[in-house]
């Protein structure tokens, strides 16, 4: 078996405050800009959230809303250029990730924080065996022998429930199905027991039956290890199942955030309400599936005020010109809307 002490996180010398009240990750005012975008239009704009130890935060939103860019910024994997972090901080304990050197960030990646991606089919290197690709991440961060790293890789394949793991260790990615490859990606991400796992739409590219398996696998592994997770998804069904906290993103901004119960039982932002309305449900349903009219405006047409205002059924003139602040509705629930709390309109769009 692997040497337990050798497998503890090492590398970056960052102190994490163990206080229960303090969140594990605190993101403050993160803005990311793409070169060439119109002035003032950030792909991620003033995003703040916290992630508590052992909890799951779901970031929800449609394609292009900036949720993946947020995740890549946290991992230090933004393609720069064109993407740049123009402001903000991300604290793990007292350490601001964005102020670390590239080398220190690399010591963090795959070690303290890990990430799995949407596309299992292309996320593994076709030229190397599964075992090699898992073991190299272990060898990078832990002071273990090659044999110990491979032993650990085998153990990880067992933990993600890959059949015949000894054989799979020597297999190449093309010999595995999409679901199996995503399990390998999970094994790879968790091999160094990260404190934070960022999962960017990990089930979107998979068959529906496989989606459920992968999701329950991730949840089980999270329970076993006590790690925190940021799950990025556009699937509200997934959110309802795994989230503790939810942040709804629209056009680069968080428009509503709160506990999963608050968001589902009392959605306050018209966009969130619209999202709920556009989820198909089983059983009889009256009329057409509700949709949110229009589409996200291109960057150069983005309104100065609320970015959702061109599509919002409740929008008035002020909405397009003045950006609404994030308004606290309850201590665990806030929404970025001039009309929050939106009691009088509640349910109207759903």
């Amino acid at each position, binding site marked *: 078996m692997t040497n337990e002490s050798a497998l503890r996180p090492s590398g970056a010398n960052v102190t994490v405050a163990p206080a229960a009240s303090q969140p594990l990750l605190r993101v403050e005012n993160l803005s990311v800009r793409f070169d060439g975008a119109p002035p003032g239009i950030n792909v991620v704009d003033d995003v703040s959230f916290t992630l508590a130890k052992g909890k799951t935060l779901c970031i929800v939103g449609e394609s292009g809303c900036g949720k993946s860019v947020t995740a890549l910024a946290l991992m230090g994997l933004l393609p720069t250029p064109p993407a740049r972090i123009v402001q903000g901080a991300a604290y793990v304990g007292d350490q601001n990730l964005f102020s670390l050197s590239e080398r220190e960030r690399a*010591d963090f990646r*795959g070690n303290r924080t*890990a990430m799995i991606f949407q*596309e299992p089919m292309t996320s593994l*290197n*076709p*030229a*190397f065996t599964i075992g090699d690709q898992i073991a190299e991440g272990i060898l990078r*961060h832990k002071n273990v022998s090659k044999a110990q790293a491979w032993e650990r890789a085998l153990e990880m394949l067992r933990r993600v429930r890959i059949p015949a793991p000894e054989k799979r260790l020597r297999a190449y990615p093309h010999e595995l199905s999409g679901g199996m490859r995503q399990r390998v990606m999970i094994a790879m991400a968790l091999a160094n027991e990260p404190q934070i796992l960022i999962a960017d739409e990990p089930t979107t590219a998979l068959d529906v039956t496989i989606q459920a398996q992968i999701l329950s696998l991730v949840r089980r592994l999270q329970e076993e290890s006590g790690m925190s997770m940021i799950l990025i998804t556009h699937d509200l069904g997934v959110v309802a199942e795994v989230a503790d906290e939810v942040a709804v993103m629209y056009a680069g901004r968080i428009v509503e955030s709160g506990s999963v119960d608050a968001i589902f039982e009392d959605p306050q932002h018209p966009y969130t309400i619209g999202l709920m309305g556009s989820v198909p449900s089983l059983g009889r349903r009256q009329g057409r599936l509700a949709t949110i009219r229009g589409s996200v405006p291109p960057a150069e047409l983005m309104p100065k005020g609320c970015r959702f205002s061109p599509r919002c059924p409740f929008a008035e003139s002020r909405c397009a010109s003045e950006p609404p602040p994030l308004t606290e509705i309850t201590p665990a629930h806030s929404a970025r809307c001039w009309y929050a709390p939106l009691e009088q309109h509640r349910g109207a769009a759903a």
Partner: protein
Amino acid sequence: MLRYIARRLLIAIPTILLVSVLVFALQKLLPGDPVLTMAGEERDPEVLAFLREKYRLDDPLIVQYFAWFGQVLQGNLGISLRTDIPVLKLILTKLPVTIELAIFAMIVALAIGIPAGIISAVKKGTSIDYVANVTALSGLSIPNFWLGILLIMLVSVRWQLLPASGFVPPAEDLWMNIKTMLMPAIVLGTGLAASLMRHTRSAMLGVLRSDYIRTARAKGLLAPAVILKHALRNALMPIITLSTLLFGELLAGAVLTEQIFTIPGFGKLVVDAVFNRDYAVVQGVVLCTAVGFIFMNLLADILYVLVNPRLRHAR
């Protein structure tokens, strides 16, 4: 793997046959009568008839082809019309020289082209990339003979560091051999390095954008491992293709470079043979070159399988 190689070899047979027909046909289409060239000033019809008879030049083409190819299969490429030396012997004396030059030139090309391509891909859009690209463009545009003459002027005449020309067999004096090969290898190699650099750069740029490179970085791997292990391995396919083709071309002889440095290689042999209408030699050399090319392609196919595990199972 062995089965794969055997099958590739079998596929090579019809290609070689086709090449032989083409070589034979092209040869016959060349203007000029070899008999007249051979006879020189003498135009005695009897001598001409004797020569035609001796070299079976009056037989129908198909008979000539089979007679020739039958001999080729037995290792007899004929006798040089000009020098009366067996073509095979001529080739065997020139080929090692050309192979040696080709290997040296290829080492120069790979040693410059691949690292330069990698660096300019990784530093895309920076001044380093720009300098590398301009240098590569110059490398592609500067003619070999000019670079060769320039090198001779500087290195041999002014600095007197290396011999300007000539060839010393390695068996005679290895050090001298390397010294004579160095400049021609640099002249040939730098030209090839330029196209290798361009191909390496574009292959690397494509690979560096892929998802698995992001995964490698997400593991915390540092740049050297990401670039040299994960990216380069996948960018190698087009580089292998190009390298083997370039090497095949080098084996066909570097006419100008050999001329400038008076290296007795294939290039000089084939030029002399063409000018002298020395049919047998031209045929032999072209056939030899074509077979060389076919084997380089085979080598490329084998290397693909070694580099890309997906191909191992496709067989």
